[in-house]
């Protein structure tokens, strides 16, 4: 039926209504009587008796015509009840320049628009598809073909934040919106690494019909990229049992769809992890998804699904940048080492491996634990985040039996960590090869010397580590980038005072990180005054010179 209706519509648009007796401008409400509209066909005689005046007294065609029919509506208020009078009269225009006849139909009536059909659609789109159009088709720009190739390149290349497009819509990353329930309308943005968790309502009986629980829902549409489409492959499948234990399946080729088994719904998707590989020009070349499938028990009315998407550049190791180029507040300060045996900083080329996404090569500080015992909480360290001043500490219980030197070494390990870095990246995206982009950490030792009358230097134990990071604003005034200029690690030591035997002393050990902004105020710069450059021609004083 739809096809025949379309075919019938294609042939002609409805003819314009030109009979003045049937035209009514004030008839706005469909199947209802409009107030004071004397020409409304929906009004009955009782409605007319309630009107006060006629809003449209005369309905005519073009007033320039010499001789035409006019419909005149009026209310006879003298009668009881008032009634509407309708008269069809011949209206004469006495002007000598009235239109006696016309051979041009569109002069007096609006043109019926062309109905688009598959044949004339392209031509209509070309004529009327722009922001403005004229009556004559624009035949001057013949180089429309020259614009198309550049447009094709624009759509294939993704920019940061642009939703990743697939065949039907966008690559979906279900996420909670307002409430914790999953919404499937969240598109994944290019180069935006996201991780979301949301709750989905399920029922075990209908679990094979719920689309969002099946693997197909997440991999069936292919991503549009450059000239071809990138299919989403299944990277791995992990099956999670009811008690939370996950096993990685050896073969990830078979598509496992949810089905009801006993009272459980198995192969339901509990988590999807997308990995998209892209080139450095913004074209997506590969897409893979790692699934976590699980079982839903009969009593469960909702399950929590977690989704993650990460973007990696092809042929590179993923190195997490802390800013591009300036440090972003909240991202970890990147640090590195100079490898042993290479005294010159130029050997950083080989040390590139040491700066991969190894978390131990970050600048870290001691993390306070609930036990607050320095010797017990070994290894808990927190990364130093740019811009966040931190202070942490623990309490050291000194007994009489403790030896100073090993205690000092242990405390230094506790304060500085297993591998305290030697260099800190000056910018958030400093590469290992650029030696000059790395700032060495200056180590200072301050000892709280107690005035001692003994000549021998007593043993000192470190009690605090203070890292001061001086940073400056670098670059343009409207978009300043944070750049680390100086890092100083100050270890304060104090003399160990052994308590008498049987007693113990508790001294606090602290470590802190302070970020100081040492940016100099912006200097205004003015344009140079224009100079008048007058030079006489070379042979001005000819023949005397």
């Amino acid at each position: 039926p739809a096809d025949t209706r379309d075919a019938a519509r294609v042939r002609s648009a409805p003819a314009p209504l030109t009979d003045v007796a049937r035209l009514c401008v004030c008839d706005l409400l469909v199947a209802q009587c409009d107030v004071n509209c004397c020409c409304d066909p929906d009004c009955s005689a009782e409605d007319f008796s309630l009107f006060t005046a006629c809003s449209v007294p005369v309905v005519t065609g073009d007033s320039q015509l010499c001789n035409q029919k006019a419909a005149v509506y009026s209310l006879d208020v003298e009668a009881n009840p008032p009634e509407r009078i309708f008269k069809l009269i011949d209206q004469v225009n006495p002007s000598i320049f009235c239109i006696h006849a016309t051979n041009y139909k569109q002069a007096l009536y609006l043109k019926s628009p062309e109905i688009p059909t598959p044949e004339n659609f392209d031509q209509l789109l070309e004529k009327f598809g722009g922001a403005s159009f004229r009556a004559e088709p624009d035949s001057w720009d013949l180089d429309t073909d020259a614009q198309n190739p550049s447009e094709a390149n624009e759509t294939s290349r993704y920019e940061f934040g642009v939703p990743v497009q697939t065949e039907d819509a966008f690559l979906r990353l279900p996420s909670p919106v307002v409430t914790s329930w999953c919404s499937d309308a969240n598109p994944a943005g290019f180069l935006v690494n996201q991780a979301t968790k949301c709750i989905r309502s399920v029922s075990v009986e209908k679990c094979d019909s719920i689309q969002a629980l099946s693997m197909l829902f997440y991999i069936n549409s292919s991503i549009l990229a450059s000239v071809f489409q990138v299919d989403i492959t299944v990277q791995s499948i992990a099956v999670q049992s009811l008690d939370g234990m996950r096993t990685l399946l050896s073969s990830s080729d078979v598509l496992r769809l949810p089905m009801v088994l006993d009272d459980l719904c198995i192969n339901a998707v509990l988590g999807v992890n997308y990995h998209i590989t892209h080139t450095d020009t913004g074209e997506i070349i590969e897409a893979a998804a790692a699934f976590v499938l699980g079982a839903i028990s009969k009593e469960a009315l909702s399950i929590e699904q977690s989704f993650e998407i990460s973007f990696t550049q092809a042929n590179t190791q993923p190195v997490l940048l802390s800013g591009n180029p300036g440090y972003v507040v909240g991202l970890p300060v990147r640090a590195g080492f100079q490898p042993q045996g290479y005294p010159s900083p130029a050997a950083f080329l080989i040390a590139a491996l040491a700066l991969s996404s190894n978390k131990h090569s970050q600048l870290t500080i001691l993390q306070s634990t609930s036990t607050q015992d320095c010797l017990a909480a070994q290894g808990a360290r927190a990364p130093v985040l740019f811009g966040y001043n931190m202070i942490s500490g623990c309490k050291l219980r000194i007994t009489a039996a403790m030896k100073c030197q090993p205690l000092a070494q242990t405390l230094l390990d506790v304060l500085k960590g297993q591998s305290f870095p030697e260099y800190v990246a000056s910018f958030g995206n400093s590469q290992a090869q650029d030696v000059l982009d790395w700032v060495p950490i200056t180590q200072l030792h301050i000892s709280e010397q107690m005035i001692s009358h003994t000549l021998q230097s007593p043993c000192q134990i470190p009690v605090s580590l203070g890292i001061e990071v001086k940073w400056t604003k670098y670059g343009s005034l409207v978009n300043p980038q944070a750049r680390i200029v100086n890092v100083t690690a100050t270890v304060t030591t104090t003399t160990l005072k052994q308590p008498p035997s049987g007693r113990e002393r508790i001294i606090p050990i602290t470590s802190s990180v302070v970020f100081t902004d040492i940016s100099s105020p912006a200097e205004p710069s003015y344009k140079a005054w224009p100079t008048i450059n007058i030079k006489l021609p070379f042979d001005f004083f000819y023949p005397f010179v």
Partner: protein
Amino acid sequence: NNSSQLSSLPLQILLYVNGIYYIFYFLATLAMIIYKSQVFSYPDDLLAPDLAVLFLMGILEVPRLYLGFKGNLTEAEAPLGLSLGLTVGSVVLCVYLLLWQTYVLWADVLLNAVLLSTYGLESGLKVTAIAAFVS
């Protein structure tokens, strides 16, 4: 005593009046076409034929009147006959402007009707004059 004079006086008067009237007619019709193109929607592909017909009629009118004068005064039937032929062409163009113009105003109807009646009367007098000259 007009027994030896075959030239038709009414025809001469009519031709003279026709010449004067035609100048007025041409200017008035041209002015009205300009008025119509400003006030109404007058696309270029409809304006061109109307103007062409008007100018063609103007071009035809000059030899037509000249031949009529000459033929009547010299009492020669050949020029009068040629003038009659050109009159037929002018009548056709006049009918076009009366009926098939894009916009026919009431003033257009009046002007063209007067011109048509003049042409008709002229043609009758020319035929009579030719008959008088030939015999």
